[in-house]
């Protein structure tokens, strides 16, 4: 371990490299660290004359509204569980699709399939929200179909159960093309020699996937999951807002921190309370990523992020 003098020596030896990294450091300093001062808003009673530091300091009072209604636990649970489902199921689906695509030999079909999978990524959630509404509403596709078949229509917008699956499905559907491309690139970078050797040894295609592709995808998989975990406390606001909207009937299973904060603040706009909620999210997101990284470092050091 280099001591205090060591850092200086290191610096001395690589001054050109340090000079090269300076713009990046500067970028983060200006755009990420200096604005962080704004978290101070979370502890003040905002007024227009005082601005950031002139406003009165009120301690943790801004955080009160988060736990006052007693649903902070439910919100956090929803946010984290949805994100876990998005991340884990999403990545698994993406890996599966990438492997299928990699095995396809018809170039035309491969390209078409890939483009079609990528398309939803470019749709805005507003449009997806409209799709969902037209599928599940009283006069939507599904209920019309049920009625035509002589079955009882199902009141999707009054029942909480289906929404967990609907939301997870649409999120995965929307993100699958993008993730698949990343995994496909990882698969393409696996040297053909492995597969040729396996073929000579008589391995069939499933054995090749299991013994070569999957293990070699593992680092990418873990890396992507780790990256996503940092944002596990950040809900996908537009997804939930566009699909659920103001339907209080469904909040028990579909309300996440972001939508809750949005609703609180559109009614009683308060910059302090908004910042407080953001700080709560960021702080726990930070704790989670440190924890996960720590565990991974203890078990498989080479996969850790930092």
């Amino acid at each position, binding site marked *: 371990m280099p001591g205090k003098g060591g850092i200086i020596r290191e610096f001395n030896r690589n001054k050109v490299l340090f000079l090269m990294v300076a713009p990046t450091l500067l970028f983060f300093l200006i755009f990420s660290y200096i604005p962080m001062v704004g978290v101070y808003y979370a502890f003040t009673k905002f007024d227009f004359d005082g601005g950031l530091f002139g406003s009165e300091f009120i301690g943790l009072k801004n955080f*009160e509204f988060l736990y006052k209604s007693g649903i902070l636990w439910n919100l956090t649970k929803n946010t984290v569980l949805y994100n876990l489902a998005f991340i884990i199921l999403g990545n698994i689906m993406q890996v599966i699709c990438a492997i299928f695509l990699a095995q396809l030999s018809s170039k035309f079909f491969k390209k078409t399939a890939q483009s079609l999978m990528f398309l939803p990524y470019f749709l805005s959630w507003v449009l997806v929200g409209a799709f969902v509404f037209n599928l599940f509403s009283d006069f939507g596709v599904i209920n019309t179909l049920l009625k035509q078949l002589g079955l009882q229509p199902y009141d999707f917008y009054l029942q909480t159960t289906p929404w967990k699956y609907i939301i997870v499905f649409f999120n995965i559907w929307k993100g699958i093309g993008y993730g698949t491309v990343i995994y496909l690139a990882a698969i393409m970078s696996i040297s053909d020699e492995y597969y040729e050797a396996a073929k000579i040894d008589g391995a069939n295609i499933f054995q090749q996937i299991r013994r070569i592709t999957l293990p070699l995808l593992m680092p990418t998989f873990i890396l992507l999951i780790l990256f996503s975990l940092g944002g596990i406390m950040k809900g996908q606001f537009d997804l939930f807002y566009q699909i659920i909207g103001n339907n209080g009937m469904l909040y028990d299973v579909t309300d996440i921190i972001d939508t809750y904060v949005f609703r609180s603040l559109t009614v009683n706009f308060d910059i302090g309370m908004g910042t407080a909620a953001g700080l709560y999210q960021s702080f726990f997101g930070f704790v989670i990523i440190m924890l996960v990284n720590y565990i991974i470092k203890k078990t498989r050091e080479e996969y850790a992020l930092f």
Partner: protein
Amino acid sequence: MRKRTKRLTLVLMMSLLISLVAGCGGGNNNGAAENKGTNTNETKVANEGEAGKETLKKVKLTWYLVGDAHKDQDKIIAEWNKMLEKDLNTTIDVKFTTWNDWMTKYNLLLTSGEKIDMIFASNWADFYKLSKQGAFLDLKELLPVNAPVTWGNVPKQDWDSVTVGDGIFAVPNTNSEYTPDGYVYREDWLKEFGLPEFTDLASIEAYFDAVKTKKNVTPINGAAYENVNRLFRFWNDFQMISGEIIGATSYENPRDIQIVPFTDEYEAWVKKMKEWEEKGYWNKNSLSSKQEAGDFIKTGQGAIYWRNPSSAGGFINEIQAKGLKMDVGYFPFTRFHNYVIPTLPIANGMAIPKSSQNPERSLMVLDKLRNDPAYFNLMTYGIEGTHWAKGEDDKTIVIPAPGVDLNVTPRYDIASWGWRYEGNMKKEKGGWEGLDALKEEFKPISKQDIFGPIYLDYEPVKTELAAVNQVFEQYGKPLMLGLTPDVDASLKTYREKLKAAGVEKLLAYVQEESGKYFDEKGIQ
């Protein structure tokens, strides 16, 4: 060795500093260039000034309005800027919040300190709260100098109503209106069913029933909540003071302030709404629907839409102009209790945010806009000959202008309410006649607004307010529409959750503040 590293650190620091300074320097240079630009302009104007014109520095202002811009907005603003440049050496960039999430955007504009020289202000856009927080500039000193005409023609009590503390924080509009809620309905269907005009809840229910059973149309199609909620308030004569939760039980008993969901009237109402929901007067997905009930009336798939008289007029005019084969009527809820409350002067107004760099000029423009008919007509009604045409006299206009198709050039209806001045307002020819009849109906039964000016900033109870609002969104709204399977159980849950959220503390606060106001005004 040490020395060298020190020097290196110094070099690095310097390079960082230099790049920083260089970054800022760029801005400075630009600023200087701009200054130069204005200077030359100034001399130019000064030269013109010698020719007898007023010397005004050229400035560019930013104005913000709520709502959406019109399709031809750019043309109209360009036209306006031509006039402004000539008269006041000013150009204005007019921006719109759009109606989508306008409240959030509006608040963000003010909190972020964006440079804005004039913005729409209203009691329903938190004018009183924002003024107290210091969002707006005090105009007391500026008004007599920079907006002398307006200063003179706005009545004193209107200025009083925008005085918060000892400052005047907005210019209220001068166009007193009545904006009670009511229902737009299918007059032709009502006649077809042989039903009487609406008078009470039973007659409305009879109409709903006939629409549902005979026409097989969902009466309140699309988003239903407000349609039901407004009826609830007016039918029971609740005067809401704090959002949807706390209000006085009637106009006659302003001091009897209660938590509305805790009242017997509310309980009876939600039970009735459960019946209505079961009969299919609205859809089960009505809370998630983003479509307005009125849009369904136009396509023949709906039968009810809540509006205030003037927007009902707009709705009916649109139906006529589009030549839709239907006859639409309007029923104001004021007929339940036979009184109406006029809007506060600051229901619509214009204010100058603290961030403004040219408040004086901005006020001069507003003065011109309110009082010069050429300015007023352009910004309020659009371009003559395109969006409107002169009627038989100066006070009447024709919309659309002859030869203009409303489907190509829609009505010009931006949120111009903030600068309206009665003396310049025009009547639309062939417009819905009901509007004038309603004005006549309202005049004798008008009662002073004693609830609107109650000033609440919720500072001591903002935690409770945020929590209570959440509970309302989650439990109150579905209950109002009878969407929960068991009304008794969900009403119990709703009340419990409200209590847990601190609704009683909120009530105490509202009662105290209202009491203060009533004492001050001598209202019992």
